[in-house]
């Protein structure tokens, strides 16, 4: 039996097609991936991301626990601020990538990927350093309102000013359509927008209120298909693709989020060694010159041999080009290098290009 979010019963009225996404019955699309993608790039879109996991971490040992469990520096986190970080095993492989909110002096919220909730919980509890860790995934819903019109749509439903919430900051207990929400200026699309955390029971009401409030602004309900094309154009990693137990954050090009100067954290030794010796593989962006789409796990060839594999690929709706990310042996990952991708037995020519593929105008 697939798990369902509290918004499941609303999907049909917005025309959703659902798929099994890591054990969750989630909408892959509503109107259509291309229309939804464009709505987020030019107007606004609303995503149900309630499948994501949330853990509350508190107590006098909360800080110490988090500082040890993630690679980024939690010490720089002010109250209401958010921090993105990979989380590693001792060998440098990636357990998950998470978002951490500091809610109070000694209270944090850690948001994890849906498919990793049980794994992360076990990892947290076996490395808890005395912190109080509570899984709030069941009772917490998350909606993502993304796109240039996000501010104007959200502002219609609350008296509190939302335009001045800085990027990667949040406000707690914001009354949105009569529902208390944690409102965060974050997202996974490469656009301006918000992620709203709230009590699961109130989620359908908020979803409908946002869809109604956004009608003039051209809001569309969006599925995981558009979420994937949007994040890929913005080169945001997806766990299980660009990050995994076999791929370190340094290989994935996420060195900015690995603070080796921190005294201690899981994976530090291995990552330090990777940093000093240089990684042997790197994640690169590519454009396909031929027709077709390179998809995850397709082999990458150069100089007549296998040099890596595709981690994600799609037809970029914004650029109208076939793009992707691949993890390749470092010497084949220079900008402008020619690669070949084995697409179902046919070698297609690709070129290493700069990423992100898409960056919004400020």
């Amino acid at each position, binding site marked *: 039996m697939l798990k369902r979010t509290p918004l499941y019963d609303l999907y049909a009225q917005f025309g959703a097609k659902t798929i099994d996404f890591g054990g969750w019955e989630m909408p892959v699309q509503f109107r259509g991936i291309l229309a939804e993608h464009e709505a987020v790039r030019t107007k606004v879109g609303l995503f149900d991301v309630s499948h994501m996991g949330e853990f509350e971490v508190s107590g006098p040992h909360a800080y110490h626990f988090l500082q040890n469990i993630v690679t980024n520096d939690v010490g720089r986190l002010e109250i209401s601020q958010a921090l993105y970080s990979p989380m590693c095993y001792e060998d440098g492989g990636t357990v998950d990538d998470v978002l951490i909110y500091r809610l109070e002096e000694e209270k944090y919220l850690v948001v994890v990927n849906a498919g990793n909730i049980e794994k992360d919980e076990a990892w947290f509890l076996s490395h808890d350093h005395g912190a109080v860790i509570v899984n709030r995934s069941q009772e917490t819903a998350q909606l993502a309102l993304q796109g240039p019109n996000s501010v104007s749509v959200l502002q219609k439903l609350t008296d509190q000013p939302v335009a001045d919430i800085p990027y990667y900051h949040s406000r707690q207990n914001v009354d949105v359509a009569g529902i208390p929400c944690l409102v965060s200026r974050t997202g996974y699309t490469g656009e301006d927008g918000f992620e709203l955390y709230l009590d699961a029971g109130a989620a359908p009401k908020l979803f409908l209120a946002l869809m109604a409030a956004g009608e003039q602004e051209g809001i569309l309900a969006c599925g995981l298909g558009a979420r994937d094309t949007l994040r890929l154009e913005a080169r945001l990693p997806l766990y299980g693709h660009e990050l995994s137990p076999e791929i370190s954050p340094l290989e994935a090009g996420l060195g900015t989020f690995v603070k080796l100067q921190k005294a201690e954290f899981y994976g530090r030794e291995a990552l330090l060694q990777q940093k000093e010796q240089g990684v042997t593989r790197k994640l690169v962006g590519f454009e396909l010159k031929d*027709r077709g789409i390179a998809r995850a796990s397709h082999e990458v060839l150069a100089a007549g041999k296998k040099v890596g594999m595709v981690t994600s690929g799609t037809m970029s709706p914004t650029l109208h080009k076939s793009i992707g990310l691949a993890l390749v042996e470092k010497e084949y990952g220079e900008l402008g290098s020619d690669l070949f991708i084995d697409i179902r037995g046919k070698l297609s020519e690709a070129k290493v290009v700069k990423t992100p593929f898409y960056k919004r105008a400020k």
Partner: protein
Amino acid sequence: MSQAPENLLYTKEHEWVRMEGTTAYIGITDFAQSELGDIVFVELPDVGSSVQAGETFGTVESVKTVSDLYAPVSGKVVKINSELADTPEKVNEQPYEGGWMIAVEIESDHPEGLLSAKEYQSLIAE
């Protein structure tokens, strides 16, 4: 509810066939395009090549997935819809008209082993 015009024949793999004399025009059904979502590439065989009933003759690729196209009939490809190279979205917009894919010359004007509209409708209703 997906459309399946009465005057066409269908396969279990969601292709349709429209007979004009001994020429079979082939495409994918409304149900198929709807399941695939936004189509971004259609790969078709060359004019003059042969296709074999039940075997793949090309691929159709949407943003989310790639799917093989299966020939409903055997014969020689006499025409392909070259407009789909630049406007693959026609398969979504007009699956039974502008979104046709290939035309195959066959031996009879009455191909066998295909489903009627009614049989196809009941198949996709399952």
